[in-house]
């Protein structure tokens, strides 16, 4: 099952600042809500999520129960050359998720 989806513009030229959309499939249980039997669902939220583009960590977020289920994050990044975007997260239960996608960058001269 694909737990993470990333999206950015189709054609990226070098030096461009691109918008990255990141969607993670996660329940983000707050610990305040009950299930159908009236039992409290224990807290299980993503503790830390990092995005690394090539060698550089470009985005880091520490969410809490205040972030909605299936969290969506949008941020900008300056793309200089083709590199691999790696996303990693850890939640309260110790589950980890990882996702890799290549960010293809066209040279600025070819445009």
């Amino acid at each position, binding site marked *: 099952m694909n737990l993470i989806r990333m999206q950015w513009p189709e054609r990226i030229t070098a030096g461009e600042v691109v918008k990255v959309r990141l969607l993670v499939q996660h329940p983000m249980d707050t610990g305040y809500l009950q299930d159908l039997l009236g039992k409290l669902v224990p807290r299980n939220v993503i503790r830390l999520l990092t995005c690394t583009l090539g060698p550089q960590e470009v985005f880091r977020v*520490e969410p809490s129960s205040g972030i909605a*289920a299936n969290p969506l994050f*949008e941020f900008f990044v300056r793309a200089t050359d083709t590199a691999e975007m790696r996303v990693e997260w850890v939640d309260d239960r110790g589950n980890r998720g990882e996702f890799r996608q290549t960010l293809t960058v066209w040279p600025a001269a070819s445009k």
Partner: protein
Amino acid sequence: MTLVQTTRHLTRRLWLQHGARLGLAWAAVQAWPAQAQKMESGRLLSLAEMLDPITQGAPVRQQDVRITAPILADNGSLVPMTVQVQSPMTAADHVSHVYLLSQRNPVTRMAVFQLGPWNGRAEISTRVRLAGTQTVVALARLSSGEFRYGQMDIIVTESACVDAS
């Protein structure tokens, strides 16, 4: 005669005691759901209470930070929010952290983002949960150590902390 009087006295006292116990038990049952939902956070925090644990005396100014979110959010479980900070985002002058703070949520610090000059633009979007109508504050920490913040009032018709779905 005296014996009868004392027994009658005792029964009346017992009656009162039972009544008091019943009342206490009823009060406890009434208070239970509120305690189970941990809704002691119904109190609204002041701006200083929200900002001070993070800024710790550093200069704070209300400028350069803009929050875009719906004025009226029907469902507090999912409120889209965009935070834009006016910053050149160079190595010398950039936004290093963005904090999303809630006035009413049980967890005040909803999210902490770390940015840097490689981002090019200090703008982030996410979807938050809100426990009722409140003011949401976005606090940005600059590379110089100063802070900027922006705030927005959001009316929430349905709190994120009561719906079990």
